[in-house]
């Protein structure tokens, strides 16, 4: 790879970096709490002191959105990486085992990938007294491994017949060693591309769950902003616009960032 192409490779990370930077600046410099209420400012329009305007009870939307965006991103990144770390070896081992194990793993990944997250979230959240972000993370992690396992399985199906893998088996290397040393490094590039898509899906699911009322208790979520926006659609349309835009920008910047990991396109 030549030196000049490096900046181009990192270009897809730009939107995500800008988003994180501006959210972090807003959290650091303004220091307004996302839960501080000022009832006389309820639903106020955007002005210099409140760049995004105010929401229900006069909460400063720029503070609320900055906090919510950072938390959503942290959740998405943590869960997507967990999915990769769990799913990729799982798919690889299943493809090496062949036969029934391979079929069942593939089918289970198919089903779980298509399963309504909403129902799983409901099951987990009904079991706890006060649902929090940790529980949401558990719900997403329970399904996030599936796409990675599918990709790793398909990729290993091709690689398992390669002569260098056959040679590794013939030399008597153990199966875990072959997976870790010879297969995972080969297929990680293909599988990691899924990180962006998974992260974006988690941001949207988290917001959707908070929108329908299954969000974190403290109300710091992009979905909660959307909920306020819908409730005050006619009085304060800026809340809806700002909320919808931030959900869109957060998920799209993750999708684009995922492309930085794609070796094929650049």
């Amino acid at each position, binding site marked *: 790879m030549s030196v000049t192409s490096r900046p181009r490779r990192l270009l897809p990370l730009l939107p995500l970096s800008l988003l994180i930077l501006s959210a972090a600046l807003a959290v650091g410099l303004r220091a307004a709490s996302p839960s501080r209420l000022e009832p006389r400012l309820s639903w106020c329009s955007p002005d210099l002191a409140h760049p995004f305007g105010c929401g229900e009870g006069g909460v400063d939307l720029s503070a609320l959105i900055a906090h919510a965006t950072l938390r959503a991103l942290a959740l998405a990144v943590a869960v997507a990486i967990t999915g990769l770390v769990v799913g990729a070896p799982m798919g690889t081992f299943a493809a090496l085992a062949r036969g029934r194990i391979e079929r069942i793993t593939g089918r289970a990944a198919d089903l779980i990938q298509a399963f309504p997250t909403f129902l799983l979230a*409901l099951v987990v959240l009904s079991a706890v007294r006060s649902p929090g972000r940790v529980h949401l993370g558990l719900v997403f992690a329970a399904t996030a491994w599936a796409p990675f396992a599918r990709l790793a399985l398909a990729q290993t199906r091709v690689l398992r017949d390669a002569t260098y893998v056959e040679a590794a088996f013939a030399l008597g290397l153990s199966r875990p060693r072959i997976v870790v040393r010879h297969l995972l490094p080969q297929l990680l590039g293909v599988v990691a591309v899924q990180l962006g898509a998974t992260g974006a899906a988690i941001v949207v699911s988290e917001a959707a769950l908070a*929108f*329908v009322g299954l969000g974190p208790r403290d109300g710091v979520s992009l979905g909660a902003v959307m909920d306020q926006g819908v409730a005050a659609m006619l009085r304060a349309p800026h809340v*809806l616009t700002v909320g919808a835009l931030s959900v*869109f920008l957060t998920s*799209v910047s993750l999708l684009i960032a995922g492309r930085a990991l794609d070796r094929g396109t650049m």
Partner: protein
Amino acid sequence: MRAFKLAFVRLLEALFVLLVLATLIFFALRLLPGDPAQLILGDQAGPAELARLREKLHLDEPLSRQYVRFLGGLASLDLGDSLRRPGIPAMRRVGEALGPTGALAAVAVAIGSITGVALAMLAVGPWLGTRRVWIERGLVTVAATPLLSFAPVLTYALSARLRLLPLPGDPDAGALGLVFASALLGVPLAAQVGRTGRAALGEVAPMLFLRVVEAKGGGPLRVWLRHALPAASGPILTVVATQLGALLGGAVVLERLFERWGLGTLILEAYSSRDLPVLEGAVVASGAIFVLVQALAAALHAAIDPRARA
């Protein structure tokens, strides 16, 4: 013979998925910390009240006995009365909610897949020339836009501001309201179907059997609709089936947005009021819709594409 075996395996698999889901929701509501009776009645409830509710829900029995009773109740579609509306069987409330959500989802699948297939054909077929790339770019953009972002904004613009369309939650909205809500729900599906369909049709496009049809005098519409589309139906049906979970999730978001009655509204209401029989019934019913449509998609694929029958 093989088709029968496959159908049988799929049926067992569907039942297994439902059993797992039912078991999960059952144990989630009973086994983990927090006494359900206490959660339902709140902190103010006296011991006599709690004991009465526990008896009514059979919470005083051993867990294994409760589980068997629950599975029996599911099989006979009788989970007891709703707690929030005493006297109304839980399953009847679930049945009443299935209708609106089923209509919403079915119309959305119809709108989404027809639009998606049409866009895919336009993106591959000869009609648009070089302007085809715009369809592809549009599909990528729409597929990246979450329903949660655009549905409320479009509703605000079209229903609240311009007043072109009725609010779908309005009881007077009627068929137009249903079509509006379904069209919103079908947009992400159309984008996914369009992208997958474009790729699948693009693979079929250079094949020789299409040149044979052209040589026999078949017009472009006949070539693409009658011959290329069935050969590309597998990936298209698969993407509809895999988007189904997202579609059901989207239906919940839209029901909440429009305050429209349906399965999602019922589940959320039962969740917040801890109406256990209704919650269990509604979760299992949503799971049943999901596995049913998955199986339907597989059967449809086999009917359209002979290669899937082998």
